[in-house]
């Protein structure tokens, strides 16, 4: 596994002296380069997962000690479904946070989508698939509206979306005003989003196996390409270690889910959204522009990036995912009602979504984070909510705790940013 051999002799203007020494020095250099790479990503605040996983384990242990139903397959499976609505909204928030903006309207938009779907499908008799498409399109359009105000009129995003929070919540209440609570078809498409489980054990295991194998293959392929080009690459051992950890987590989850009703459809959709959005953001040219905007708008503009268009697109993504998340919320409740609409307007979903993104390691200061951060963050948030619900903690206390968690996450983000800036500057002496 040592990176020796002739692969270092790449084309180009490499100094002649390198040739002879390279052979013996290859793997050391590789290790050094790799260590620098790791240091770089740590400084970038991507050390996240370990701390958050530790926090999650603590939370689980505490609630399990207080109520032994907490870690039952049933409750864990329910958490697995309940994270999806908030999680999808939070993924949308990640896109906006990456360009260093914020979307405060997502809670209202998700409520609006749920109401629009219910009114169209139940009251107006529009076919369910069409009502779903319209509801999601409403989210996209609302996002485009916010984005246009922000990008082209230069109104700060938090003001535009704060106004949106009220406007779309008002519209939701107006839509539902005539009919009050609307119950959606319990056998229908939207209801099945959260009620459907893949009963056969094989499905959950197959997904776990596929995810693990996919990760392993992608990591090995990257390693192979870097090695062939004579560049630093991950040691073989680390790839296997990461794969093993992933496999343990994936198969444990599959086993637990199979002890209840099997893999929930909602969770599968959520995982697909995470994989796709992560790929787009980290591996495509478009995703690079998104990160660039978060790291320096002026630099991005001077590099010829259409800053305004990227901004509008990000708000469209966030509106769309808020609407999709809203359909999952409506699905879970099998209804859309003025009460839930008021709750959506109260900002609980918004706060949970922001907290989920930030706890997982996406920065409020732009340019740092990834959709995967949402998975851990929303697990933390939903575990706390579920535990408190099991214990019968009253709303008032839940509010305070959720707000406190958000504050703690944001404080940690600000501190890690300061630490990153310090370490960045302290290294900023000529080498």
């Amino acid at each position, binding site marked *: 596994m040592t990176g020796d051999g002739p692969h270092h002799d790449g084309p180009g203007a490499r100094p002649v002296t390198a040739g002879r020494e390279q052979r013996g020095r290859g793997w050391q250099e590789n290790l050094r380069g790799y260590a620098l790479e790791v240091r770089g990503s740590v400084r970038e605040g991507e050390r996240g997962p370990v701390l958050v996983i530790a926090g999650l384990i603590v939370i689980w242990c505490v609630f399990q000690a207080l109520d032994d139903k907490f870690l039952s397959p049933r409750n864990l499976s329910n958490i697995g479904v309940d994270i999806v609505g908030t999680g999808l909204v939070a993924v949308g928030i990640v896109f906006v946070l990456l360009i260093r903006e914020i979307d405060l309207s997502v809670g209202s938009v998700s409520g609006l989508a749920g109401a629009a779907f219910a009114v169209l499908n139940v009251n107006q008799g529009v076919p369910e698939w069409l009502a779903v498409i319209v509801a999601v399109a409403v989210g996209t359009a609302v996002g485009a509206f916010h984005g246009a105000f922000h990008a082209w009129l230069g109104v700060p995003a938090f003001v535009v979306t704060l106004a949106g929070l009220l406007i779309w919540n008002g519209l939701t209440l107006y839509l539902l005003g005539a009919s009050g609570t609307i119950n959606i078809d319990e056998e229908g498409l939207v209801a099945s989003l959260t009620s459907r489980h893949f009963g056969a054990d094989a499905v959950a295991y197959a997904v776990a196996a596929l995810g693990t194998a996919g990760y392993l293959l992608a990591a090995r392929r990257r390693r192979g390409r870097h090695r062939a080009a004579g560049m630093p690459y991950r040691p073989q051992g680390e790839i296997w270690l990461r794969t093993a950890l992933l496999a343990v987590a994936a198969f444990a989850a599959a086993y637990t889910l199979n002890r209840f009703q099997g893999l929930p459809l909602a969770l599968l959709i959520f995982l697909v959204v995470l994989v796709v959005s992560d790929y787009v953001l980290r591996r*495509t040219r478009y995703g*690079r522009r998104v990160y*660039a905007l978060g790291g320096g708008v*002026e630099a991005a503009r*001077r590099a010829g990036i259409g800053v305004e268009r990227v901004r509008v697109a990000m708000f469209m993504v966030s509106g769309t995912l808020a609407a999709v998340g809203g359909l999952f919320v409506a699905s879970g409740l099998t209804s859309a009602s003025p009460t839930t609409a008021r709750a959506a307007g109260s900002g609980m979903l918004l706060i949970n979504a922001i907290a989920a993104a930030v706890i997982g390691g996406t920065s409020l200061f732009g340019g740092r984070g990834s959709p995967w951060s949402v998975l851990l963050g929303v697990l933390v948030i939903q575990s706390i909510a579920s535990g408190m619900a099991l214990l019968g903690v009253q709303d008032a206390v839940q509010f305070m705790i959720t707000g406190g968690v958000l504050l703690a996450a944001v404080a940690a983000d600000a501190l890690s940013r300061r630490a990153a800036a310090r370490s960045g500057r302290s290294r900023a002496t000529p*080498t």
Partner: protein
Amino acid sequence: MIHPPVLALRGISKRFGGVQALVDVDLKLRAGEVVALAGDNGAGKSTLVKVVSGVSPADRGVIEWEGRPVQIKRPHDAHSLGIATVYQDLAMCDNLDVVGNLFLGREIDRVGILDEVEMERRARDLMRTLSIRIPDVRVPVAALSAGQRQAVAISRSLMAAPKVLLLDEPTAALGVEQTSHLFDLIEEVRDRGMAIILISHNMGDIKAVADRVAVLRLGRNNGLFDVSTVTQEQIISAVTGAADNAVAHRARPDEEAWP
């Protein structure tokens, strides 16, 4: 060796609110020459650079590229003509690594998917050929020193193999060795036919690499000199306004009369 003018600015004016940053500025740049742009703080040097690079277009005036008038309204227009710029404030994305910044806006991709390996390979090659010392091409630029950032910004501008290179105080953060290295580089690319505008406050630097020196004062042309014949004192008096060359300049609008 006489080269045709690659870039000509005529009557460029630009104002920011109450500040008239540029007034009727003329400048001509031939392929294979280095024109230094001198002037006091706030004279309008950076503003002129941003006009040419499309970051903040002029209010009035004509830009001619290889003899025909062109519109430079966005950075993209300047890039596609073959104009590359190192800005005074560098303008880099702190969260991206050196590779990401070098290729920002012109990533190597296959159907939209980034080819990180190829970009990293080229970045390493480039850092090596330009003898730029940075810890690694994968560290975020936030972790680089000011001089290292400047070196990265300069490499980025050279990577596009431009016809015109605009350098806004490129040596401000560079050490002695890196500065002389940059000057060698400037001479090398000039001899290959690149045209360069070099902004500097350092008379020694100007004398060392420039062929001509254009002076801006309070947003106006205030003299154009041949470096081989002008004295440092003459440049300084044009910069400070001790010598008012604006009138002299306007009396000779025909630029062929310029040195």
